[in-house]
């Protein structure tokens, strides 16, 4: 087994644990590269099927290319697709910094769906490598009654034994890609020929390294217009993956604030 085989196997193990332990779970599909890899891994884990609903929290502000990608692959991958509109910005705490407030719409949509469907678990494609509070996560990460995350008080997790017992009113976030790096994701996309939103590939000297809402996501300078060139770029870049995601940088602990109240 080479490195990609190892990380793939670990993700498949996690997905199968999730599916075994919970009846009411959804996978989050942000339409980005990581969640596409996650769906691909699910098809591997479940022999061509994605056996749980796939949730898209629609802020209404995604790029047009993302919406058309969603339509095409919902059909092609035969997904049990759920779209939820995020509540308007007016319903979100105005004390939050602007981009954080905007990003919180997604958290709010997710929380409402969790209550509505009485979800036990939400499968999310976050990675330790992309952001330093995510690096502190567990694979099976318990959330409180209001979806809050207490980074201090996380259950011990070792030898692939995950805490799957749920306190009433709480849910678990499951992170099958936690151990992947950005480079791993691109090497795997290359090996498996996984389809992507074209915005990742450079046009006129710019490309998106991470996709979010149009108004709070910026492209980076790049000439990489193929998967191969992106891999080469990643080997030498001094720019962080989420540089273009404004909500990460508004204040020192902007992302910690977002995540501690339930953001992905």
């Amino acid at each position, binding site marked *: 087994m080479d490195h990609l085989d190892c990380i793939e196997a670990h993700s498949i193990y996690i997905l199968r644990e999730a599916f*075994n332990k919970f009846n009411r779970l959804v996978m989050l599909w942000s339409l980005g590269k990581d969640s596409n890899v996650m769906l691909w891994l699910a098809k591997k884990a479940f022999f061509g099927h994605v056996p749980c609903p796939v949730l898209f929290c629609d802020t209404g502000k995604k790029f047009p290319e993302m919406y058309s990608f969603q339509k095409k692959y919902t059909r092609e991958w035969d997904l049990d697709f759920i779209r939820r509109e995020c509540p308007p910005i007016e319903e979100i705490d105005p004390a939050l910094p602007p981009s954080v407030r905007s990003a919180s719409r997604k958290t709010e949509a997710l929380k409402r769906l969790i209550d509505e469907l009485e979800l036990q678990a939400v499968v999310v494609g976050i990675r330790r490598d992309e952001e330093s509070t995510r690096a502190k996560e567990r694979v099976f990460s318990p959330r409180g009654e209001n979806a809050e995350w207490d980074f201090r008080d996380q259950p011990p997790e070792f030898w692939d034994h995950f805490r799957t017992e749920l306190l009433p009113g709480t849910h678990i976030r499951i992170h099958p890609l936690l151990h992947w790096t950005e480079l791993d994701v691109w090497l795997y996309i290359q090996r498996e020929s996984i389809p992507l939103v074209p915005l990742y590939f450079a046009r006129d000297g710019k490309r998106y390294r991470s996709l979010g809402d149009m108004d709070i996501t910026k492209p980076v300078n790049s000439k990489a217009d193929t998967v191969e060139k992106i891999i080469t770029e990643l080997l030498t870049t001094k720019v962080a993956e989420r540089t273009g995601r404004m909500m990460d940088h508004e204040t*020192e602990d902007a992302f*910690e604030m977002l995540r501690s109240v339930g953001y992905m």
Partner: protein
Amino acid sequence: MTTISISNIEQIKLVIAGHVDHGKSTMIGRIMQDTGKLHDDKIALLKAISKRRGMPLEWAFALDAMRAEREQGITIQTTQVFIRTATKSYVIIDVPGHKEFINNMISGAASADAAILLVDAKEGVQDQTRVHGYILHWLGFDSVLVVINKMDLVNYSKNRFDEITIQVNKHLEKMGIIPTDILPVSALYGDGLVHKSQNMPWFTGHTLMSSLETVLPKPMPMELPLRLPIQDIYTFDERRIIVGRIESGKLKVGDTLMFAPSNAITKIRSIEAWGTNLPVLAASSGQCVGITLEDHIFLERGFLASHNTDPALQTYFFRARIFWLADTPLELGRRYKLKLTTIERIVEVYKIEKVIDVFDLSEHSTSRIERNMIGEVVLHARAVLSLDEFTFNPRLGRFVLFDGYDIVAGGLVFTDKLQELGLTSSQSLQQISTVGSYVTIDNRWRANGHKSGILWLTGLSGSGKSTLALALENILFRKGWQVFVLDGDNIRSGLSADLGYSPADRYENIRRVGEIASLFANAGVLVITSFISPYRSDRARARALIPTLFHEIYVNASLDTCKKRDPKGLYKKANKGEIIEFTGISSPYEIPASPELEVNTCKQSINQSIEKMLSYIQEKFSIESDK
């Protein structure tokens, strides 16, 4: 740059252990900087947040990402960062050094291929150096890379380095851990990490990164016997795919497998995979596989597949070296849920042999094991358990214990010296691994045409338990089922004739019913018990004997209704005080918290209740038809 060369770089997981404030996070942050892994905006951020706190540039903030960690200047939660050199890729695991966060330390350290033990040149070996050292030893590391940090604080003195080296060596020697290398560094200034130190010309050995070049990932246990714990069974389409991760060994299409604990034997028909056109014919350790089988045998999660020529041990008793993580201590006689790969069993602490003082490595006898202590215990599983000795096959020889919602311990399996404990031969390994393998429960089910188990009816006197039990027995028997009712009439008259109705006698009576019912279930019979069994703890004990085959059925009827029905006139007597401790009147009935099924005989007719139970039985006890 080709794909193959990058993805073939092996990844090594390294944990950095050591006492609080000896510089673990700082060292990792500095390595990230010196290997070019810190991005430009991250460095700008670190500068800004260090300045805001009136500090020089703090490398540890690259890892200590949480406000609480930065403000207290300590790592609270374990984290992992990724570093790549020309030839290798590393996952570096930072763990908290503070004694409050040992849970997080173990969560980080358990997955590592190699360990670095970091020691402050000024302070030398401290409490958590010892604790972390012992945890590494317990996790199976027989060597560590020792790094003596903060050499800048001791003027880069060779004498001090030599002193600490002797101190550390002496401590590691006691545990039998070999230091693969001992390196002087200053993490703050980058001396001896990626670049050779100009300040320590007397040291001619490796830098940290060059020393790490020689570290290898833990090999996949390919040469050990096959162990494939069943994770799940999928029937998304016409295929019945058995999935699991091969923990050790290898398999190929056509191999004969034996599945513990039923010990049923069949062959692998195919290895299934999605997204490949070529048939998969073989697989080996580390792979998550899906297989189909020649025969449709009964299987479920927690069964363990091995080659029939080389099965795992099957036992009720084993010794374990455990690390206790919970505030409530481990005590003799307590029960916990054990998870070993996908296998789950209730285990009871049969014996506490000793506890090891991780500070001076002395051993003491004890009756309890407290938080953050390592102890040796004998555990007793209520149903046969498949495992390997840790030193033989680590992946099948390690487990965790749960108490309620929480992981309370990690443990390693040892199977030596069981005879010395006075365990009788029927309990020891050799006996168990042969007995029971000729006629399996699966054989019995197939012969009977249905599965067996216990329907444990519980409810107030007069709720309708016996009526339901006897009616079901009649209906099922006429359909050709092996079915039998245990109730007060046939138990109290013989087996429990020596017992009265005191709490102790009631407890003993229910214990006997549980044991008998479990024997019937193992004999292939669907057994229906009809006892008030008012206490949750008593019912839980019965369940623990045979958890997968135990079905608690709550026969619910209000006390008023039961009093009105009063078929045996018992409530009248109880009200007059002629019967003491009568459930519902003078002693409590504890309602089941989560029964498998509930029937309400106030709201439904007896026939409706029977229908409900029959459809439950149909669902749980019928055998899928063979194709």
